């Protein structure tokens, strides 16, 4: 069962959506279930589409043509670059923090 949203960068809806789309294009419902699966975070439908709107405006993701009611979204090169930078920053902080905790 999915947990409630936590606070912190690892539960940021934009990072979670970008991370989900890093494995390939998905529509909204598929993003929600994927985020629940890999991050254990349950995104509300309103939160999900607010974040999708922002990411489309920033040109980090784009909608693909579709015949159905659900359009798949895909990561753009700009979005992939931004996600890579964010995750590397998070890894640097996490590595340093965990190392310091081990010595504490």
């Amino acid at each position, binding site marked *: 069962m999915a947990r409630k949203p936590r606070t912190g960068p690892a539960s940021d809806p934009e990072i979670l959506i970008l991370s989900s789309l890093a494995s390939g294009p998905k*529509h*909204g*419902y598929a993003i*929600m279930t994927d985020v629940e699966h890999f991050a254990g975070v349950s995104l*509300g*439908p*309103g*939160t*999900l*589409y*607010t974040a*999708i*709107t922002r990411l489309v405006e*920033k040109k980090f993701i784009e909608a693909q043509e579709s015949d159905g*009611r*659900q*359009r798949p979204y895909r990561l753009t090169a700009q979005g992939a670059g931004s996600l890579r930078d964010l995750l590397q920053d998070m890894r640097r902080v996490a590595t340093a923090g965990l190392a310091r905790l081990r010595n504490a």
Partner: protein
Amino acid sequence: MNIRRIIVASLLRVYPARWRAEYGAELTHVLLSRPLSLPVAVDVVWSGLRQRARTADAATFAGLATMLMILAGFLSNTVLLQDSSITLPRVVVKPFRSDLYAFLLIAFGCWVQVWRGGTASSSGNAAVRVSFLGGLPIMAAGLLALFGVLDLSTLGYQGGARHPSPVSLDVFAAPLFALPQSFLWGTIGGALGRWLSPWLRRPVLWSR
């Protein structure tokens, strides 16, 4: 249409029409694919309000701020002063007559022009929107007085003395009659903004 579809359609009404045209069908599909609980409904409504706030323009915000200021004026002049033992400083709300109001609309028209661009008359239109939104509580008060629900003589209540009641229809119509004047002040501000914009336009520092 079943009850669930009606609830989902109602929830989506919270979002701006332009947003609904772009993402409405997808969000509807997601909402119909999962259990519709109270937290989900709250999440959708909250996100819709945020979306409205994001897409609202400066005129809407300024108009709502004016509306709040006028409501605060009503409150201080009516409810709080009903008890004559309370001696608060009197707040006089004459937004459509004061020089300050005209100055604020000129400044707003100038700001719209410098930061958003467009024509001088677009600043006038923005000022009309501010004035209309700000005038809604006054129109509502006039309407309530017209139907005998509100006693407008309390608007001038001060130190236990009642002032002559304004005519309800005048109170209701005053904000509407102020709109052409607001357009004029906003347009003057817009023209001023066009003249000042080469010196005042801010550089774009970041896009986030």
